[in-house]
């Protein structure tokens, strides 16, 4: 007769109730029964391991939001629980299935103030029994985490850092990425702009390191998909006050002058990852041109306007729990924790090695509410995923676009491909 999950659960629950009583009564019979006691203790230990093996403890390690970093539009809320809320929801989702499978998922969390406190946060999570880490950290802090000997051989899910180097020359075997790389986002936008035949881009970027990397990704995407960057220029100002009485008076005059020297272009592409200025560009250009990139028409892993493929269910569950909209970082953390839930359900195991092997194997596919199953690229552990291309209030399209072919998976047309990858485990 095939083994049933319910039977396991029942027998496990029964042994949990009975076993300690036997141990106590055996102890009371004294030394003459030492052999029996020892054997029973052995059984007790084995059972304790058994109990552990049915629980998966996942630690979320995040960084406090730098006080200066706030979205430019007053319509966007300032969030201090981004990421961790996604992990929380996935824990609940995993446990709904887990209750039928005898598996339990537990979340531990540590939010630290700076990258110097990362080791302390890690120790706290390890102390709470975390076998897996979901990182809401930017690259530098994430690298501190990866270098920390206290991490041991634990696997880390990068649910926040979009840096291509982490998937390339700086990749690590125990680092998985559920957040898309800059290059994946740039490719997703480039495919859609290709579909529109808006192939002449003017590029405007900020002065931060993140923006420099974003520009690199845009250039690579333009090259791959046959676009032409006709001109590019750095927005010369430092971050502006979020609130300025009548700020548009200045903006309205500055932007047309700033872009007037650009050669003829179809679309203005912005690289402003910290949301310092890009939000000002739509409708302020000299020529009537759409604005795309980090603002305007934006490639993103998740958006509130996305409700297809059952996404509305996830949006509603999230909002009920968090009291706010789900962001791409929440979604990346959700994907990380759900990956473990899926692997544990399929393998019937919570063993680290079994789950890792399953997640990088052919059979792994996760329903991510994006129309196509998502899975990990075995050569750099990046989650291959469709990317939404959205306006501020509507989903405009989803990439990969039709017609961009790939011998393995259409999803591998987004991001650095195997042949070009610098990653060597």
């Amino acid at each position: 007769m095939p083994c049933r999950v319910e039977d396991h659960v029942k027998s496990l629950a029964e042994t949990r109730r009975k076993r300690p009583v036997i141990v106590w009564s055996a102890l009371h019979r004294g030394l003459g029964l030492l052999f029996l006691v020892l054997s029973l203790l052995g059984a007790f230990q084995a059972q304790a391991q058994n109990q552990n093996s049915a629980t998966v403890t996942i630690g979320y390690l995040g960084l406090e939001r730098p006080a200066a970093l706030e979205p430019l539009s007053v319509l966007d809320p300032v969030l201090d629980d981004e990421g961790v809320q996604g992990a929380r929801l996935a824990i609940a989702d995993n446990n709904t299935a887990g209750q039928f499978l005898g598996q339990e998922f537990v979340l531990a969390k540590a939010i630290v103030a700076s990258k110097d406190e990362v080791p302390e946060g890690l120790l706290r999570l390890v102390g709470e029994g975390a076998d897996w880490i979901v990182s809401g950290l930017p690259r530098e802090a994430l690298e501190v985490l990866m270098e920390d000997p206290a991490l041991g051989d634990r696997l880390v899910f990068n649910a926040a850092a979009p840096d291509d180097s982490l998937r390339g020359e700086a990749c690590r075997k125990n680092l998985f990425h559920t957040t898309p790389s800059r290059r994946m986002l740039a490719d997703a936008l480039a495919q859609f702009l290709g579909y529109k035949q808006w192939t002449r881009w003017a590029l405007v970027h900020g002065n931060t390191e993140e923006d420099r990397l974003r520009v690199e990704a845009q250039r690579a995407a333009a090259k791959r998909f046959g676009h032409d960057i006709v001109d590019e220029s750095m927005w010369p100002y430092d971050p502006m006050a979020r609130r300025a009485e009548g700020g548009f008076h200045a903006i309205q005059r500055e932007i047309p002058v700033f872009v007037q020297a650009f050669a003829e272009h179809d679309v203005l592409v912005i690289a402003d990852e910290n949301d310092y200025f890009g939000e000002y560009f739509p409708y302020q250009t000299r020529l009537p041109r759409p604005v795309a990139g980090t603002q305007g028409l934006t490639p993103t892993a998740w958006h509130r306007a996305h409700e297809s493929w059952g996404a509305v269910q996830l949006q509603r569950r999230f909002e009920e729990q968090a009291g706010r909209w789900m962001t791409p970082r929440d979604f990346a953390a959700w994907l990380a924790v759900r990956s473990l839930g899926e692997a544990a359900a399929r393998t019937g195991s919570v063993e680290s090695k079994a789950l890792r092997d399953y997640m990088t194997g052919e059979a792994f596919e996760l329903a991510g509410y994006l129309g196509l199953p998502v899975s990990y690229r075995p050569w750099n552990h990046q989650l291959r995923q469709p990317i939404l291309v959205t306006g501020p209030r509507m989903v405009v399209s989803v990439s990969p676009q039709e017609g961009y072919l790939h011998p393995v998976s259409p999803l591998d047309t987004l991001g650095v491909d195997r042949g070009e990858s610098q990653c060597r485990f």
Partner: protein
Amino acid sequence: MPFLKTATIKQTALCATFFAALVLTTVAAAERVFVSNEKDNTVSVIDGETLEVVETINVGRRPRAMAFSNDGSELFVAVGDDEAIDMIDLETLKVVRSLASGEDPEVIRVDPNQPYIYVSNEDDNIVSVLDYQKRRRVTQIPVGVEPEGLGVSPDGKWLIATSETSNMAHIIDLESMEAVYHRLVGARPRHVEFTEDGSKAWVSAEIAGKVAIIDMQDTFDVIHSIDFEMQGVPKEAVQAVGMQLTSDGRYAFVALGPSNRVAVVDQQSYEVLDYLLVGQRVWHLALNADESRLFTTNGVSGDVTVIDVEGDAGDFEAIRSIPVGRFPWGAIVEP
């Protein structure tokens, strides 16, 4: 009674064979196909003989799954955004009443023995049981995350609900109204069909692109999994959704979503016999009464493909494409 229904179908088929075309025409002329248009808030009515849309019924917002009342006098339509089941009088083709269904009803099924409608309420992780005569909620059955597909066994003993995020088939004993077995199936399970004898249940999984076969007599375990592979079609585009099983136990049809194909499967050997090219994003399927035709809803192309089924010859051919409303979701043929 499912047994009676089979007998009627067989008899009809027999009549058709003996008394040739005239009788067949009379039988088919009465047949109407109903198609729910998710984006248009309408139900298209197709004449099964002329294969033309003869009527468009206005219903509530976001109509998806449909089912007939046991006496065949009414058509029930789950209208998700109105959180209700609209009931259409099949004489007048008008919505005559509407029954509150709980949040976001997507799939509905009718109990063969009792005036019950089973509704999957995705947001609440429950299956609601509604009495459509007394117009009240009978009970709620808790299941996994996002219940979606539902199937009732022909004897009315079992209900299977699939949960899209837990990836499980929850097998519910309809006497106690409790889920008694929980079985893992492929990612994002969508639809359930029982074989005519009730011995097996077929469960399709959209994201996995697979169909699981569950033994409903002894172990209640998954005993087989069917894969679909087509040359030149990316693996990700193969998504298994709607299914129809012929009552003679020979063929099963599986809608494969964005691959724009319907698979023909041998019900006994589980071998995939053929892939039929239909409209874009094929979602659900309906066989007509004598099982000589299969209707497919094609969401993206906004049409219905008609497939001629010649089971004896093993011949299946798409013969017609009928434009309907926007985003056709489900189809059902009047019994």
